[in-house]
């Protein structure tokens, strides 16, 4: 672990954001110390708006004041800016890197949006979201295959991309009336394996807390 010097890294983030958690986990996996700056998303700071004028979203990594936006871009940046730290994208293997990027992109395109529809919608919309969620989880389990992690033996890019959503499984299960353990036992086992890693244990909130957060959002949006 580097000494007290923070390498000039700051992370603008929001506690429960799975996208922010990807960055926190990546930083810890690499042994990089950083300053965590919790953002008030209802009242966005000048710092955030200046650092991410295009999307105005967290997470944003600041490295010696220069911003990097979009969680997966941040994780790749950390690999490239700190090449002496453990690589998250497999080094020197373009095909394995392409596979990793493909599956991380799949998580981005599919999971969060479907999860949101699952807790927001009723009736046909909800039923559709439930069907899709099971398909997404099964597809991801297929990509995992027989490996300990998505990249094989080593915890890597796709694991970082997906693992924050494991805290959301309970929420998906309750709102979707489904069981990840039952539908995708290998994926459930992978989630447990990841939870044993210090970077993951430290940076994910208990599933009950995520569920409580979503219930709070539902009340605030007037969804019953």
């Amino acid at each position: 672990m580097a000494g007290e010097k923070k390498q000039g890294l700051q992370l603008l983030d929001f506690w429960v954001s799975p996208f922010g958690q990807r960055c926190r986990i990546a930083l810890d996996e690499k042994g990089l110390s950083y300053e965590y700056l919790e953002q008030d998303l209802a009242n966005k700071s000048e710092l955030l708006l200046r650092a991410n004028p295009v999307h105005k979203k967290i997470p944003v990594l600041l490295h010696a004041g220069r911003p990097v936006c979009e969680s997966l871009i941040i994780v790749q940046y950390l690999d490239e800016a700190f090449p002496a730290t453990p690589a998250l994208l497999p080094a020197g293997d373009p095909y394995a890197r392409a596979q990793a990027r493909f599956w991380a992109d799949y998580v981005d395109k599919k999971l969060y949006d479907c999860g949101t529809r699952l807790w927001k919608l009723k009736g046909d919309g909800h039923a559709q979201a439930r069907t899709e969620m099971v398909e997404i989880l099964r597809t991801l389990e297929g990509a995992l295959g027989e490996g300990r992690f998505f990249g094989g033996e080593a915890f890597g890019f796709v694991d970082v991309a997906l693992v924050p959503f494991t805290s959301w499984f309970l929420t998906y299960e309750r709102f979707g009336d489904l069981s990840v353990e039952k539908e995708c036992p290998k994926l459930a086992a992978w989630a447990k394996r990841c939870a044993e890693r210090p970077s993951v244990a430290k940076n994910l909130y208990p599933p009950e807390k995520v569920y409580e957060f979503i219930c709070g959002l539902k009340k605030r949006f007037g969804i019953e």
Partner: protein
Amino acid sequence: MSPPIKIIGHPVSPFSHRVEAALRLKGVPYELIEEDLSNKSELLLAKNPVHKKVPVLLHGDRAICESLVIVQYVDEAFDGPPLLPADPNDRAMARFWADFMDSKLLKPFWLAHWIEGEAQKAQVEEAKQNLALLEEQLKGRRFFGGDTIGYVDIAACLLAPWLSVIEEVTGVTVVDENEYPALRRWSREYNSYEDLKQCVPDRDQLVAFYNERKEGYKMFASAWLQQ
């Protein structure tokens, strides 16, 4: 000796073009397997079971899907001029703007041309805001990548060969020459770039293709708006 490279794609698809452009810029020969977009082949479904879409790069027995994933693969797997810059922060910015094309610009830009009425106004407004951000990114440079075409230019190709075609077919202009002079100049430069001449789709063919399917594209746009 590298195994043969094939693309399952279509000249009318800007996503497929991205892959052709990347390979041309690297000087890598390839074969384009033209997919019937209205009747997906066994090959496509086998090689891209997850998304069932073009383009797919076939490199020996490897299949790589998602156009920007493929372009990065091409940059890393083959020698030749780099498509992404060397500095990590510049690389992050390039990835950011390429992602911006797909996540922020694509939908309102497309819909602004194909839908009508009140809804069109909102799409035009959003498209213009995003186009302004791109205009600013060019900052008087010849290309987003500097003096040569790079990752962001390839990602933005919808605004090059397709721009004047869509304008002609729909009769709509969003990228006004006066408001976006840098983008229009960039578009012309891209379309006449020597190394890409052989994969820039034939303009007349593109116009004919879209004209023949105009109603279909309008319906698709209406459906996309509702999503």
